[in-house]
């Protein structure tokens, strides 16, 4: 029997406006978190994992209303905390606490750690100084320090010890829920295991729910019961930790799991390599946000290119969508100086640019599919004669893909949720075979 969730996040959204000018006109938005939903049950540890820029830390601060969410609801014990007024919010702070990433800056250097741990008690009205002292000393012992440490200052402790104090400070108000934002990232490996063990023990002893944010899969795997994988502000896969790690379904999750270097040299080079960089969150790709880097992006039915060539064509297409492809510099990048055409000879120029484009985007010449080949050649001509926009038009018409046109929904499959058209039965798609790009030995 599943207990009612303690925390339910519904469509949480946080955008940061980009402003210009004295009057601060909004010219764009950074979509740090763009509608995520998940829940956390009592006594459970849930993880949010993802790389930099995916919005996981912002999700944590918005969830606790340390920053005001732009949209969405957060239900805590059944009540919507986004509608709380000041005093209700203050009371909520007693029930939900946070541990921060950097132990060296999460303590006021001018306060002893005893005072830092006692501060939440003071804020919420406990005036009895001696009672505060006793509570603090008791807590310090529980997290593995000694009561005498209460008078010492943060700079006298190591990183691992400071994280223990951070845990004590979070516990002092007896919360039901703790958000841990990268709690061990700043610590040495030999200390990480200790702190994670401590968090696990504390959770078991006091029945807490924990939300763990991390970019380190090993950490997540160590203590999380369930995990949500985020990419560019959205959750792409979500499910029990072991399942997601051992059998990832979403192409991004697969690449992520594959990229983690395993401490076993016999298994080197097993990863899937993604191309390119994470796109800018103020200008995310259309449709599925991951499609520009996805190894398994869906090709139109009438195209038979092989997955790698298809991906490269799609890369060419996406690049034109960004505008401003300069044929001249492309030629300069890939052709030796002697072969660069002068301004006069049009045919030579077209040839040179064709060569350069093929080199830049790794497109074989000619492509195996004749229609595709024609479309690409036409696009290169359009690039030379008219411009990037026209070339882009041609490519978009010739190579439509559902991954660029429609955003996938989170769909239940197999005990977990995945946001990918490949897993959405309502979408017509022939999945291409996965290509594994290894890092390792060729011998």
């Amino acid at each position, binding site marked *: 029997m599943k207990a009612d969730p303690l925390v339910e996040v519904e469509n949480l959204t946080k955008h940061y406006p980009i402003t210009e000018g004295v009057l601060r006109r909004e010219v764009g938005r950074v979509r740090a978190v763009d509608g995520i939903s998940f829940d956390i049950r009592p006594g459970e540890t849930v993880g949010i994992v993802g790389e930099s820029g995916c919005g996981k830390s912002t999700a944590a601060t918005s969830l606790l209303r340390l920053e005001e969410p732009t949209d969405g609801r957060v239900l805590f014990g059944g009540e919507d905390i986004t509608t709380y007024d000041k005093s209700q919010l203050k009371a909520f702070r007693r029930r939900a606490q946070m541990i*921060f990433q950097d132990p060296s800056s999460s303590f006021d250097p001018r306060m002893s750690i005893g005072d830092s741990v006692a501060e939440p008690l003071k804020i919420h009205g406990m*005036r009895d100084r001696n009672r505060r002292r006793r509570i603090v000393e*008791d807590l310090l012992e529980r997290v593995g320090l000694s009561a005498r440490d209460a008078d010492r200052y943060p700079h006298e402790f190591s990183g691992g010890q400071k994280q223990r104090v951070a845990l004590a400070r979070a516990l002092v108000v007896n919360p039901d829920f703790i958000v841990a934002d990268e709690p061990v990232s700043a610590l040495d490996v030999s200390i990480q295991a200790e702190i994670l063990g401590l968090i696990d023990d504390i959770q078991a002893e006091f029945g807490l729910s924990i939300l763990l944010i991390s970019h380190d899969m090993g950490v997540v795997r160590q203590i999380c019961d369930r995990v949500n994988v985020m990419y560019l502000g959205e959750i792409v896969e979500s499910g029990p930790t072991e399942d997601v790690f051992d059998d990832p379904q979403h192409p991004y999750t697969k690449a992520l799991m594959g990229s983690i270097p395993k401490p076993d040299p016999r298994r080197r080079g097993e990863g899937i390599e993604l191309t390119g960089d994470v796109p800018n969150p103020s200008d995310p790709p259309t449709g599925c946000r991951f499609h520009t880097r996805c190894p398994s992006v869906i090709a139109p039915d009438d195209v038979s290119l092989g997955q790698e060539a298809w991906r490269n064509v799609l890369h060419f297409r996406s690049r034109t969508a960004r505008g401003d492809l300069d044929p001249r510099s492309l030629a300069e990048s890939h052709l030796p100086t002697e072969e660069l055409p002068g301004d006069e000879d049009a045919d030579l120029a077209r040839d040179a640019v064709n060569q350069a484009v093929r080199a830049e985007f790794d497109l074989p010449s000619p492509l195996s599919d004749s229609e595709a080949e024609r479309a690409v050649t036409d696009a290169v001509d359009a690039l030379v004669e008219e411009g990037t926009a026209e070339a882009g038009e041609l490519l978009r018409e010739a190579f439509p893909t559902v991954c660029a046109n429609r955003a996938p929904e989170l769909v239940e499959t197999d005990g977990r949720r995945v946001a990918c058209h490949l897993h959405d039965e309502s979408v017509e798609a022939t999945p291409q075979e996965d290509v594994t790009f290894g890092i390792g030995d060729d011998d």
Partner: protein
Amino acid sequence: MATQDTFRDIDWEEMGGVGLSAGGKQMLAFTAIYLLVLAYDGLLLHDGLNVLLLSPLGLEASGLGQFVATTNGPTLWIPFESVGIDFTFLWDFSGTDWLFVVTVAVGYFYGVLPMRNNPRLAATYWRQFKKNRAAVVSAIYLVIIFVVGIVGPLFLKDPQIQPLEAYQPPVFMTVPTTVPIECLGETTMQGGKQVCQGTWQYPLGTTGEGKGILKLLVLGMRVSMQVGLITMLLVITLGSLVGTTAAYFGGYVDEVLMRYVDLQASVPSFFLFLILSYFFEPTLFMLIALFGLLGWEGTARLVRSEALQRTEEEFVRAAENAGASDGWVIRRHILPNVSNTIITNASLLIPGFILFEAALAFLNVTDPGISSWGKTISAGRGDLANAPWIATIPGIFLFLTILGFNFLGDALGDALDPRRGDS
């Protein structure tokens, strides 16, 4: 009892509000006493009720006013003169003096008390500070000046003009007898000329008006201390408030405050004082008020940039996360962490203001009734050839005091800087 001592046993419903700390209660008590005495002085001793309230309203509450007012303040006058000691104790607080009391109180509550509450931190700072010998010597010197400057004038009568005793040399010097009007000390022969030796009656000699230089120095100490410290307090109070508020709240608040600061920075307070001195009586109070109220832009900008850095630190977010209000965060986290910048800035501001006052006094645009070092230097300006001690001795003290504050400021900056590798 053990059952009450773990965090699991807290019953949050029965907690009251935050309440006051011990320091807070002391401050409240002090403020109450201060206001009472101020009321007594203002209303009773200086007819304040009439002047401030009733006359402007056209009422001359005859019976009431007369009843409330008395003439002079209690002049505790101990007739030591009968035993040959010229000794008085004068209570007549002027506006400046009231401000000075506030300044000293603030110094106690925000400087001394926190250090007493955090002895380990204080010990660390002291260890660092001790390493700078020059600063320690300066600190001792300044403390002496401070104490003498406060206590001394209480026991001194206003210096009188005594033409017969003009131009006496200091006790360690001899001058040709042509210089003093009448030599109070011994006259001897030296190198073919008759010279006058200084006496202990005027250990540092006298001015052209016959006023004892030592007395003038002591009175000048008070003036310098008052000018330096009170103005500094005004400046850092206004500057810190504005700086931290702008940094913490950001946005429109920041814009508006900083643009005002830019405006104020364009107003030259020195010249403004000169101009105002033509229209109004240039009292010390006016000088302090003007420089204090118009001189805080630099501090505001400095504090703002420090506070901006602190606001980004995680411990601020940790406090917000624990439920702290904006005021709590500013007061307990941001201000203490920018306080080192403030203190360093303060100790470097003081000499600036003392110099301002000296310069204005030198130009004879300040209150003629107040004897400051600048005034004495100015008085001795013309006699540098014959009676160099008149201008030089105050000049030396002025120089040493400025130097002392500079050394102190540098050392404080180094000692209090938390970015000094701590571990």
